[in-house]
C-alpha cells in the first residue's frame, strides 16, 4: 500500500463563513492528517460545528477552499460526491437517527444505498456494527425514541461506521454521557483508530477526551485555528487557550493524566 501516512485527508484554506453581519471564520486554514485523532475545541459560538458542517458539505462558505481526499468538495459532480460520501461517516450531536426506522435499519441505510447486498448479509453486518460500538444485544430492534441519549449516540456512530469509512466526523460525541460511558467511548475511538486506521475529526468540549486520545488539538479562536499537540498548546500564550487548559478543570485533568496511577484515584483540583 502506498505510504499516505502524513498526507492530509482534509485540507482547508482561507475559509470564510459569515452569518448575516457576523463573521465566524476569518480565513481559516486547517489540515487533518491521515490516521490522527484531531480534537476541535473553541468557545461556544466560535464556529466549531460550522467548520464541521462546511467540511462535510452541509454549509456553503463565503470564501475559501475545502479539499477532502484531495478533491475540492465545493465543485464536485454528483458521481464524485457519492464516491466521497462513501468514504466518510458523520455523527451528529444527538445521533440524528431516522426516527421511523429501527437501529438496525438505520445502520443498513448506507449499505442499501451504495451496495446491492442480500438482506440477511446486511442484517449480519448491522448486528456486528452494533456489537463493535458496544451496544447490548437487543438494540437493533429498537426504535430511536426507545433509546437513552448515550445509546442513541452509539447507534449513530454505528451508522457512521457502516461503510468502514476512512474518516469520521464526530460532533460532541461525549456530551451528555456519564463519565464511564464517556471513557468507554474514548476507548472505542482509540481501538477503532488502531484497528481500522480511522482518522477522527472530533468537535468536543471534553477535556478528558482531549488529553487521553487526541493526537493534535485545533483551537478555534478569533475566527482561525491554532493547531498543535497538547504540549504545544499548554505553552501557548493566547489568553483564551491559557484559561481553557490551565483553568481549574483543565488542571484537574492534567493532574490525573500525568499521574501514573490515573484511573485508580480520584483527581484532585489543584489549589487556585
Amino acid at each position, binding site marked *: *500500500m502506498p505510504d499516505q501516512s502524513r498526507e492530509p485527508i482534509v485540507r482547508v484554506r482561507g475559509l470564510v463563513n459569515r452569518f448575516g453581519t457576523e463573521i465566524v471564520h476569518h480565513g481559516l486554514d486547517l489540515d487533518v492528517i491521515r490516521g490522527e485523532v484531531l480534537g476541535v475545541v473553541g468557545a461556544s459560538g466560535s464556529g466549531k460545528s460550522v467548520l464541521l458542517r462546511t467540511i462535510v458539505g452541509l454549509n456553503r462558505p463565503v470564501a475559501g477552499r475545502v479539499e477532502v481526499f484531495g478533491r475540492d468538495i465545493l465543485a464536485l459532480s454528483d458521481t464524485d460526491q457519492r464516491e466521497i460520501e462513501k468514504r466518510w461517516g458523520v455523527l451528529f450531536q444527538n445521533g440524528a437517527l431516522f*426516527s*421511523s426506522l*429501527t*437501529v*438496525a*435499519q438505520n445502520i443498513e441505510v448506507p*449499505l442499501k444505498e451504495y*451496495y*446491492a*447486498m*442480500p438482506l*440477511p*448479509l446486511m*442484517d*449480519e*453486518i*448491522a*448486528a*456486528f*456494527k*452494533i*456489537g*463493535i460500538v458496544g451496544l447490548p*444485544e*437487543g*438494540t*437493533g*430492534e429498537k*426504535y*430511536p*425514541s426507545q433509546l437513552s441519549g448515550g445509546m442513541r449516540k452509539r447507534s449513530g456512530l454505528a451508522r457512521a*461506521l*457502516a*461503510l*468502514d469509512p476512512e474518516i469520521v466526523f464526530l460532533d460532541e460525541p461525549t456530551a451528555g454521557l456519564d463519565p464511564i460511558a464517556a471513557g468507554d467511548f474514548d476507548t472505542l475511538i482509540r*481501538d*477503532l483508530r*488502531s*484497528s*481500522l486506521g480511522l482518522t477522527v475529526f472530533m468537535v468536543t468540549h471534553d477535556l478528558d477526551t482531549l488529553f487521553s486520545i487526541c493526537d493534535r488539538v485545533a483551537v478555534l479562536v478569533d475566527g482561525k485555528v491554532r493547531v498543535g499537540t497538547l504540549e504545544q498548546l499548554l505553552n501557548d500564550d493566547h489568553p483564551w487557550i491559557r484559561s481553557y487548559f490551565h483553568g481549574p478543570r483543565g488542571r484537574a485533568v492534567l493532574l490525573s493524566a500525568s499521574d501514573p496511577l490515573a484511573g485508580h484515584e480520584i483527581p484532585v483540583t489543584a489549589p487556585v
Partner: protein
Amino acid sequence: MAAATTTLVASEESGSLVLAATGEWLVATAAELDRRLRGIEVPRGRRVLLDLTGINRLDTAGAWLLLRTEHDLTARGNTVEMRNLRASFEPLIDQVRTAGFVPPARHPRPAHHTIAGFIARIGEISVGLMARAYSILGFFGVVCATAVRLLRHPRRLNITAIVAQMEQTGVNALPIVALLTFLIGIVIAYQGADYLRFYGLENYTVQLTGASIFRELGVLLTAIILAGRSGSAFTAQIGTMRINEEIDAMRTIGLDPVEVLVLPRVFGLVLTLPMLTLCANFMGIFGGGLMAWSQLGIGIPQFLNQLSTIAPWSFWIGMIKSPFFAVVIALIGCYEGFQVTGSAESVGRLTTLSVVEAIFLVIVTDAVFSIFFSSLRI
C-alpha cells in the same frame, strides 16, 4: 503487484481443505464473497485451513466474513486454522473477534396480508376509534373545566395570546377564504341558473344561491379551509413542542399547558370563525350576484330585492353553527398535538389525522344541526 481477483478458492492439501482467500475483502465485495462462501461444500470433520496470504485489503465486513466462516465451521465440528494473515490486519481481526457474535435484529412484523388479517385490522381500527372518541371527550372536559376556572379569574386571561391567534387563524386566512367562497358563489349561481332555466325558474337563482350560501356552504367551506389551515398548524406546533420537551418544561414551571396553549387557540378560533363566515357569505353572494348579472342580466336593485326574500333564519343558522365548528376544529387540532410521540413520522401522521377528523366531525355536527333545525321547522 498485479491486482488479484477477490475470491475464495478451495483446494486440497495433505488431507485438509484449503480455502485460499484473495483480493480485497471489503464491504464493497462482501455480497459476492458471501455468495462464494455459501456455495462451498465443506465435508464434516475435515480440517480446514483458511489461507489469508492473498488478501491485500481488509475491512470490518471482510473480517466479519472470515470470522463468521471460522465460527460456523467450528460449530459444525470442523477444526479451523487461520494462517498467514498479514500482521497489519491483526488488530482488525482482534477487534472484530472481541465484538462477538451479535444475533441479527428481527425486522418489525409486516402488515397483515391475509383476509383474516384484514378483518383483524378492521377490528383493531374500530376499537381504536372508540378509545380515541372517549379520549377526545375527556379532553373536551378538561378544556371546559380549565376555561371555567380561567373565566373565574379573569386577570389570568392572556388577551395578547388570543389576539395573536386571531391574527394567525383569522386575519391571515381572510384572503383565501374570500377568494374560495367568491368562486363557489360564482359556481352555484351559474350551475343553479343553468338548471333552473330548464324549468323556467331562473328567477329563483338568487334565492337558491343566497340560501345555500348563508345556510350551509359559507360556514362549511370556511370551516373546512380552517381545519386544513389552522387545525394542522395547531397539531404540528403542539406536537413539535412535545418533542422538544417544551410542554414538560411548562409543567415544571407551574404553567398549565391547556390554559397556555389550548385556550387561546380555542377562544381565538371561536371569535374568528364567525367573522370569517360573515366575510365568506358576503363574498359568496357577491360572486353569485356577479354571475346573476352576467347570465341573467339581473341588475343590482333587482338582485337586492330578491335577496331580501330569503328567510332571515337562513343567515342566522349559518352564523349559529360557526362557533361550534370552531370548537371542534381547535379541540381536535390541539388534542392530536398532545398525542405526538418522539418522532417526525408521528408529527406527520397525526397532523393528517387531525385534519381528517376535524373535517369529519364538522360535517357530522352540520348534519346534527340540520336535523335539529328542520325539526324546529326553521
